[in-house]
């Protein structure tokens, strides 16, 4: 595994002693890919033959750049020297620059190959991805850094967009964490990649600069399941359905296990039923539509209960969540705009709403103040007023623990919602 720091070597040695099978895959990787090997090894009649299972992921340390291995656990300080470039210094005096680039997450093998080409040319064949779908290239000297930045700037898609825009550090809008949307999911109410592209195009200046009061984390989830865990983001874009599932009586008993469909409903709103079609009694279900919260869990279990609807579906905007424990505790995002219609291909309503919130915050908040902390300081009534968002009953909770969000004091501010303070 090369020249690892003592601290790292100790961890590697411990796992070696556990007898892991794929600690070091370098020998495997030296061999070219053999497109015919699997067909020789796999026998559908004897599925256990030649089967390797439960080896888990290859050990992480073999993928570290040399400077990372050598200085593992011995880093001293870091500095963002320009947007997207972080300089790390180790106790040994070694330096590494991390160059951060956004990606759309949904990328082809051709893009990954291009990333490899860059990593081979400048980074000794290493590259990293972050939790927020950013790429990170590592170099150890200024000259290579400048050459790499120049190179990245010149790489564009035919339509003119940057392939690897550098940014996403410090007090900025970094890359949006998102789900699959219409590209590959069966329950989405909105697309993911298209909205992300439209919003990031609009906020691109904030991705490539550090002029906000604090970092702003934007996330998108295309339905209430929230695979993207958007519920603690500064700004969350959430896909919502607004029509209960249809029930295909003719088909349901053929394609679903009815008890599973019933059990799938979190609110117990699905009940068994029998209907008569052409004189034949047929088992089916009925939905108590008033209890439906449009989550789509039934459809996941039963393809005869679709709920997507071009006119009903759309976007809700939630704001003010955070993950970090810095200054204030982590908190949830709150629903401020209950519905914006789907407007493909560029969702102008969503883009406009987000820009208005972001710029009001940027103008108004104090240094280091996250969006949610700002809203709490000025009061949510002021948030709605300043952002010019109409307050509706949809922002008042009526689910579990709703009472926790009600205001039980006489402290409030005069805004357009009451009688304005003159």
């Amino acid at each position: 595994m090369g020249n690892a720091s003592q601290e790292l070597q100790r961890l590697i040695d411990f796992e070696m002693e556990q007898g892991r099978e794929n600690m070091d895959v370098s020998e495997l990787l030296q061999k070219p890919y053999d497109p015919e090997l699997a067909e020789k090894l796999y026998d559908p009649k004897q599925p256990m033959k030649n089967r390797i299972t439960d080896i888990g992921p290859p050990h992480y340390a073999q993928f570290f750049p040399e400077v990372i291995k050598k200085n593992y656990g011995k880093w001293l300080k870091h500095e963002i020297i320009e947007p997207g470039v972080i300089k790390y210094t180790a106790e040994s005096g070694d330096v590494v620059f991390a160059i951060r680039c956004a990606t759309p997450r949904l990328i082809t093998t051709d893009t990954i190959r291009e990333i490899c080409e860059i990593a081979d040319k400048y980074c000794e064949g290493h590259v990293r991805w972050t939790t927020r779908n950013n790429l990170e290239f590592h170099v150890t000297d200024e000259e290579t850094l400048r050459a790499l930045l120049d190179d990245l700037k010149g790489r564009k898609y035919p339509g003119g967009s940057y392939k690897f825009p550098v940014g996403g550090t410090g007090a900025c809008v970094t890359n949006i964490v998102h789900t699959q949307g219409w590209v590959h999911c069966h329950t989405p109410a909105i697309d993911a990649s298209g909205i992300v592209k439209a919003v990031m195009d609009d906020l691109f200046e904030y991705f490539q600069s550090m002029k906000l009061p604090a970092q702003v984390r934007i996330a998108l989830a295309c339905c209430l399941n929230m695979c993207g865990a958007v519920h603690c983001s500064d700004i969350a874009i959430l896909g919502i359905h607004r029509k209960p599932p249809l029930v295909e009586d003719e088909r349901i008993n053929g394609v679903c296990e009815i008890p599973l469909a019933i059990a799938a409903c979190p609110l117990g709103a699905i009940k068994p039923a029998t209907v008569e079609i052409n004189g034949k009694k047929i088992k089916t279900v009925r939905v108590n539509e008033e209890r439906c919260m449009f989550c789509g869990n039934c459809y996941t279990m039963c393809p005869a209960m679709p709920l997507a609807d071009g006119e009903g579906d759309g976007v809700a905007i939630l704001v003010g969540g955070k993950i970090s424990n810095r200054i204030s505790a982590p908190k949830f995002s709150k629903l401020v705009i209950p519905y914006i219609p789907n407007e493909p291909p560029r969702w102008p309503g969503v883009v406009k709403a987000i820009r208005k919130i972001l710029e009001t915050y940027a103008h108004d908040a104090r240094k280091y103040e996250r969006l949610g902390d700002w809203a709490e300081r000025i009061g949510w009534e002021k948030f709605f007023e300043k952002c010019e968002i109409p307050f509706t009953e949809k922002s008042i909770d009526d689910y579990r623990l709703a009472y926790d969000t009600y205001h039980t004091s006489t402290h409030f501010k005069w805004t357009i919602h009451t009688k304005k303070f003159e």
Partner: protein
Amino acid sequence: MADVKKHDTPMLEELKKGPFPSFVDDIEAKGLKGKQECLDLLGQLELSYKHKETHWKHGGIVGVFGYGGGVIGRYSDVPDMFPSIAHFHTLRVNQPASKFYTTAFLRKLCDLWDNRGSGMTNFHGSTGDMVLLGTKTDQLEPTFYDLTHQMGADLGGSGSNLRTPSCCVGKARCEWSCLDTQAICYHLTQEYQDELHRPAFPYKFKFKISGCPNDCVAAIARCDCSIIGTWRDRIRIDQKAVRAYIHGELKPNAGAHADRNWGKFDIQKEVIDLCPAQCMWLEGETLHIDDSECVRCMHCINVMPEALRPGVDTGATILVGAKAPILEGAQLSTLVIPFMKMEPPYDEFKDFVDKVWEWWMEEGKNRERLGELIQRKSLQEFLRVTELKPIPQMVKEPRSNPYVFWSADEVPGGWDRDIKEFRKRHAA
């Protein structure tokens, strides 16, 4: 030009414009080089843009033999228009901890995926896996054989399994990390391969490991068991560097606010006054911290990274039960173990996990996350089964209602009483 059919996609054309990388350009170029699936995917997406509805449906029994997770079935509902993506299943491949790669690994993965699938990926899925997007049922086993035999890689979790653990960059590159995040992530992933690949639980279970309370993998919001680095000694102070910040020689917050003029750095206003514990003060130009009052929020360290560093007696705070809103509403993780050393072989932690799992497997309802079970059965019961002592750190404030569930053995004489004896003292 390869023999492929490009669909008319006027709306998606609009998503080639603008500076942010265009997934449409990427996928279309790949398609024109010979991957019909890419062009069909864009064709179907255009149709979704027209209808404002998805055109995917899901499927059940796809997977590799002996595994109950790692593959997600997906089918087009317009297969006649887009036959190459009629079946379009996803494989989740367990990423190396903290997502460093060599180009040798990535190139071979690309060769594999061009051969076995669509050539499209998500780098990465929300949970952390490398997601190979789109292949046919008959390619699943060969893909799995290729991954295990030629890459030394394996599938990640899905369904009611342990999901693929993930972690932040940790000590590999961050001076704040109080944990060997990759090592913990790798070890748990390896130790619990059976739980990762086969259904074991009422519902999904996630581990995430962040090296410090900045929590760069969002462990506190996203996972059933959050492992977050912390320390229990003093913040290390370099007073010379403190003075350098005061005099403007060092950039506050490591330069994170450099593109706006926020005025001269003011240590009182920007650090001391914002400290949530109010445990710092300045004497002349010497910074003092009452570490016994510190809650380790990281703000002062974030603002003056060259002057302040976390302590050296490091370990993890363990919190449990976070989840997205379905079903009972979103939950953040609840603090249950304020400090635990996290050193190989991690036995203390694994013992804790065993107790948690045993209880959840026994008591959890189908599709009930750990956080929901704790809500239903109470935090007290969770503490009893995990043999943890109740401490005030576990609550924001004590309860305000008096409805305590006393048990008989806590009351002298128990609950066996005689009404006749009672009536001797009190007339009816």
